[in-house]
């Protein structure tokens, strides 16, 4: 079993979550990128600012945490990276928000308070945290603060500002005077004060041009700024990711001992090709990780069943193309994995899986509103004020009482495991439950929602925004795309069928009735044929059909028609018979009256009139 101090990664592939620092050993395929950016970090005198940009879902956060950060902190580059969390929770860099200058001022104040960053931890700093924070309100002031601070730090420092596009996107949402002006002023001032603090700004590619333009306007063409594009994963990169864990030993979570992963020749190539076709651009990497998890599960079960490992030897788990074919389409694998994750949680919490899954489906529909496809199909997340999102979610999740109870239990167990069951909440409480559901979705291990708190000068207090977490974005959108396209196509098909069927019902009914009537009538040819000799073929046939359609027994009809014809003549009979259904009813009534008048004795014994002629 895997002990607490076991440095090995828990599994060869990470699934839907993103890489963190402890996953560095599994992070493959970006070695050249990592080394190139680390070299930019190493030369602090030349590069003051590094602009790392890439498409949404191209793996910037993973790159920073599992790729760049370990190498930058190694002896080769020997630079400290400012971050929070890390040991037990996820690593967090400086989240930009709409006012990154304020975030940086907070970081500067935080540095002052923590002695571990300083060369002489015991000595008092020349400024207090409050002073530093106050200096941070102006661009020049903060740049000067960092310059003064730098020589006193224990090591060179790299500040990573993540999600830097929020300078533009959030400011637009808040309808406020953009804080970007002050931020770019600060960056320009920071670049003009060379020292061993560097800033790396991570953003989406579509905003890189605006950063570049703002900096060039302030600094001219001689920029101490290094841009770096993190390209979307290629097939070759995916192959490396797939091959990465091959020589490592992992511990099975269910206690089947250690195992090593072995790939069939060429399977990584086939899978990479398949994924790059199914998920062009971002998303392929996450999809690969998901498929990897599923393959390893399958392989572990087979390997444990077929050949138990020798004592002390790790169990070899072969991943074959046959298994790849068996697990089915990638979208289904992804969905299965998410369902399994929910299922695991429900099992732990003792919940009804079906109910929870249904809730998740409802929730997902609302979450998908946060995804917007851009040009060339590249997905981006939209920010939505939290209140608006909650309202939408409440509207969407018209929960039953049982569902409310399930969600309530989820929330309680997530927050305080082992808590006693409480009876289902009242209907009025469910917006509160939705809020707690959001809390659960924002938890780092779930990582569905990303929440941003923004301080807007035009509004009282902070405004909270939510966006779809980038890590599930690729998978979620891929799934949504595939599902929605399939669903839309199916809906269109069903709609067309319905319309056609509605239009065809009366037509088909008439056709069938007529067909049956005609068939019945024609089967009676030996009976009505003599009638046709009196009325003509067409008239006789029409009469027979109409009366048959009206459900009038044909047996007596022939005699009546014959007598009516004798009385009124052929043309009158034909006219009455063919005037229509209503007229036909009148004609029938008239016929009966005539019959009663002229043939008071029962005529039922009369044979078919034509029979006498035969």
């Amino acid at each position, binding site marked *: 079993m895997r002990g607490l101090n076991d440095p090995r990664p828990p599994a060869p592939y990470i699934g839907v979550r993103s890489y963190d620092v402890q996953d560095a050993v599994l992070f493959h395929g970006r070695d050249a990128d990592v080394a190139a950016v680390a070299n930019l970090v190493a*030369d602090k*005198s030349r590069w003051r600012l590094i602009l790392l940009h890439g498409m949404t879902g191209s793996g910037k956060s993973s790159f920073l945490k599992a790729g760049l950060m370990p190498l930058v902190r190694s002896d080769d580059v020997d630079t400290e990276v400012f971050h929070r969390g890390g040991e037990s929770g996820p690593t967090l860099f400086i989240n930009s928000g709409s006012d990154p200058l304020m975030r940086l001022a907070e970081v500067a104040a935080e540095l002052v308070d923590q002695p571990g960053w300083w060369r002489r931890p015991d000595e008092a700093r020349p400024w207090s945290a409050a002073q530093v924070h106050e200096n941070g309100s102006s661009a020049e002031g903060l740049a000067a603060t960092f310059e003064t601070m730098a020589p006193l730090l224990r090591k060179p420092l790299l500040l990573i500002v993540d999600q830097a596009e929020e300078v533009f996107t959030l400011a637009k949402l808040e309808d406020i005077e953009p804080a970007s002006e002050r931020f770019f002023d600060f960056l320009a001032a920071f670049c003009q004060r060379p020292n061993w603090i560097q800033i790396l700004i991570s953003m989406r590619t579509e905003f890189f041009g605006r950063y570049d333009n703002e900096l060039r306007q302030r600094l001219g063409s001689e920029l101490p700024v290094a841009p770096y594009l993190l390209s979307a994963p290629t097939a070759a990169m995916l192959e490396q990711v797939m091959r990465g864990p091959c020589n490592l030993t992992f511990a099975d979570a269910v206690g089947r001992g250690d195992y090593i992963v072995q790939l069939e020749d060429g399977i990584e190539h086939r899978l990479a090709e398949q994924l790059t076709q199914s998920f062009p651009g971002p998303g392929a990497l996450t999809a690969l990780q998901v498929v990897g998890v599923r393959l390893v599960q399958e392989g572990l079960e087979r390997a444990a069943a077929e050949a138990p490992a020798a004592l002390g030897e790790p169990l070899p788990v072969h991943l074959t193309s046959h298994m790849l074919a068996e697990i089915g389409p990638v979208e289904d694998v992804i969905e299965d994995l998410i369902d399994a994750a929910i299922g695991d949680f429900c099992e732990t919490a003792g919940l009804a899986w079906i109910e929870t899954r249904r809730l998740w489906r409802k929730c997902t529909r609302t979450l998908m509103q946060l995804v917007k496809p851009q040009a060339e199909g590249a997905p981006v997340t939209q920010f939505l004020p939290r209140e608006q999102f909650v309202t939408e979610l409440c509207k969407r999740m018209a929960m039953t009482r049982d569902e409310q109870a399930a969600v309530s239990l989820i929330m309680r167990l997530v927050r305080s495991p082992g808590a006693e069951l409480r009876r289902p909440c009242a209907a009025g409480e469910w917006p509160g439950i939705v809020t707690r559901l959001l809390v659960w979705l924002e938890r780092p291990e779930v990582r569905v929602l990303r929440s941003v708190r923004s301080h807007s000068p035009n509004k009282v207090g902070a405004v909270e925004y939510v966006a779809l977490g980038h890590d599930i974005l690729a998978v979620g959108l891929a799934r949504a795309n595939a599902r929605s396209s399939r669903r839309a196509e199916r809906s269109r098909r069903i709609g067309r069928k319905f319309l056609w069927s509605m239009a065809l019902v009366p037509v088909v009914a008439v056709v069938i009735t007529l067909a049956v009537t005609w068939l019945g009538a024609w089967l009676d040819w030996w009976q009505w044929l003599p009638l046709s000799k009196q009325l003509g073929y067409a008239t006789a046939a029409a009469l027979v059909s109409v009366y048959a359609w009206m459900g009038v027994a044909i047996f007596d009809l022939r005699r009546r028609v014959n007598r009516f014809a004798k009385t009124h003549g052929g043309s009158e009979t034909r006219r009455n018979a063919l005037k229509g259904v209503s007229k036909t009813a009148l004609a029938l009534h008239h016929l009966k009256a005539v019959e009663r008048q002229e043939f008071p004795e029962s005529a039922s014994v009369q044979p078919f009139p034509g029979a006498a002629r035969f």
Partner: protein
Amino acid sequence: MAALTPGAFARRLSLRLRWVNEDLAEVEWQDEHNNDWNYRVRCGPLLSLAGEMRRKLDMLLQAFMNEPDGDKPRQALRGLFELGHDLFGALFASVDGDDETARAARTLYERCDAQGDLALQLKVAPRLTLPWGLVVPTLDGADEASRDATAPNRLFWALRHDLSVATFGAHGDWRNALCGADVRVVAAVHRRIFESAQRSRITAFEVRLIEVLTERAYNGMLFDVAGLSGALRDTGRDAQAQLRVAYLLGHGNGQRFQLSDTDEISASSLVQRIQSTAERTQRLPTLLFLNGCQTAADAPDFRFADLLDYRSVCAFIGTEVRVPDLFAVRYSLALLHAVLVQGRNLREAVSALGRDHLPLSLAYSLYATDSLVIEPCADGLLDLLPPEARPCGNLSMGPVKCAA
């Protein structure tokens, strides 16, 4: 920060020199006695000493080539050593206001073992790429007789003390990505230099080495200036190529580099030429061996060592001063043999060649991360080379000392 161990000489010494700002650099001292000290020094004296050292080195090499056994080389060598001592001493001139740290720095300097073998490892920030290979440990602790830098034993010790220099960076043996099978080499050699060297005095071994490298092992290697850009581009297209070795041999003057009679480029033009290849190529780290006069020297605007700033260049070997062409050809072949055939670490290879081919080898500086290594090709190039013929001893001696 551990306390200084009294009475213990440092024999294995690691110094990290990090750039703090325009004025300051930070030195981190670590030795075998678990001493770990940090202090600040001024950048200005280091930079001015570097310029002076290059001038003295140039004097030494020119004097050696003109009159190897004369008195001038000895005098120049002495001057160079004194500057080497000064540069080493400047590393311990702490500017810190704290008296204790300044005293400790001085004590550290005095505790270096000036007599025995001293293993000195220097790791410097890219901005501080000075001729660190010429640093000579202190003479302060030595007796009067050994203070004479030109005394044979002292000369021997000063030239052969174990000194390794590396720069901060991330292109080392990062996950052993630099597999030998993935290496592609492109080489452009000034044809006149190459032909004159071939006609004159390169050995049979070296001729065979060129043939093997060109035909068998690294078929990307070509001795053609015109095809250089194309070769870089083609190499970059290969997704498996993890490292390129771009080897350029021509005439340099610190500012410009002449690849052929008609192709003369500046440092910035060379950057453009490397960067003008496909975008994919830029992502691939390249070892740039710029074998021409003064290619590692300072320049007012843009020096060739600044190529390290570009993401496509992971290591740089250049010359601090003027070198004769024939020596350049033979030295480069010896280096390619050591790195590509024998699979030696770049730092070790340059260090070993520096010891074997004194004093002309002092002109070459390696600016790379600590453990950059190119694994040799799997099919064993050693088998392809004639075993009876091996590189000769000191390439500085004999006929090579005269410029071709």
